[in-house]
């Protein structure tokens, strides 16, 4: 149980403590892939969906582990569940929407090693959120993740056309952009509480 309202939790996860810009989680697959806006939106949507499911599963697993008194199995069980969830989502999408599957392409398997999803499960457990709070947290985190990714992709698209000095080309300038974005998001501190 947390002392924060559901709305506070959502805003916090989405804006104030954005997973990408405040915790550095989830930039792993994105930095390595092209900075296209459409990819960012799709990736964000996929991650949000997996986050929601992973959050519910993490809550259930935590209850189970507490019941059998085996807290040391937490990390392994989370990883296994996340990997399985991604696999299931991939099969599900492949079957019901081949077009979407083709569009998402390589992003789906990449989500497994996405730090943001595991981070979500761990933070939610550490802060002791109950079920509804966890859902709110997952939704906020997914929304924030998508937002950050879309913003960065938009800027990178423009940067690709700009005259960037050779030394800064590639990751270096992306990191600078991320730094500036992170600072702007700090302006949201105090919102919603």
């Amino acid at each position, binding site marked *: 149980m947390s002392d924060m309202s559901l709305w506070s939790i959502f805003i916090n996860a989405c804006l104030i403590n954005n997973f990408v*810009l405040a915790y*550095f989680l989830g930039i792993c697959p994105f930095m390595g892939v092209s900075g296209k806006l459409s990819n960012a939106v799709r990736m964000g949507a996929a991650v949000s969906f997996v986050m929601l499911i992973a959050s519910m599963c993490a809550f259930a697993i935590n209850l189970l582990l507490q019941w059998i008194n085996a807290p040391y199995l937490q*990390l*392994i069980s989370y990883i296994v569940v996340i990997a399985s969830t991604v696999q299931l989502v991939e099969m599900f999408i492949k079957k019901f929407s081949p077009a979407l599957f083709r569009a998402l392409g390589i992003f789906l398997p990449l989500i497994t090693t996405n*730090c943001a999803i*595991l981070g979500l499960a761990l933070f939610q457990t550490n802060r002791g959120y109950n079920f509804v709070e966890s859902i709110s947290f997952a939704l906020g985190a997914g929304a924030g993740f998508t937002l950050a990714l879309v913003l960065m992709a938009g800027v990178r698209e423009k940067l690709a056309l700009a005259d960037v000095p050779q*030394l800064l080309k590639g990751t*270096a300038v992306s990191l600078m952009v991320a730094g500036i974005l*992170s600072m702007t998001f700090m302006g949201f501190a105090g919102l919603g509480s």
Partner: protein
Amino acid sequence: MRTSNLATKVINIPVVKAESQSTNEFIKGLWQQNPIFVQVLGMCPTLAVTNSAVNAFVMGVATLFVLLMSNIMVSSLRTFIPRQVRIATYVLIIATFVTVVDYLIQAFSLEVHKALGAFISLIVVNCLILGRAEAFASRNTVNKSIQDALGMGLGFTLALLSLGIIREVLGQGSLFTIQVMPDNFEHWIILLLPGGGFFTLGLLLIVFNWIQQRQNRRIAGKDHE
């Protein structure tokens, strides 16, 4: 041939030595097709705790430990694990040692564990460890795997440490909690915030890019002779 130079670990700059490149370097270059991206990616979950040198150091050492132990285990079991389930098995092994290091840190110092929190557990999604298990430990002897892990882990720790030192010295005026900056030094607080972490990392990358450019120019210069 162990190149434990910091630059080559963080970014796979092809350091051309007099003797021919051994298989070790070759595999590294092969897997790390985007060396800068992959190596930087390996640091991503750990960046959040590099705002002090102590935290960065402990994080680096923890990663080194996990890398070492999982390399040893993957290497010793490499003939036993069939190809189809190798990734799942590697992840299982890595998660085990991350759990182990989590408890070890807790037993060693509650203070440090509180400061690092969930980020210790996030070592398990560090692409570097899975990458080394897949690319190296699964195809080499235990001895070589140990060497590889130590080299990579050390380079990683040094990279994190450089980040942590810059952020702490300029952001807090201290180094490993000992004041090093004069009293009237205005702390660059921005470096302690996440944005500062991005900036510092970007800055380090620029430095390495510059080093790489110079080396490439020198090699090109030699070729012309």
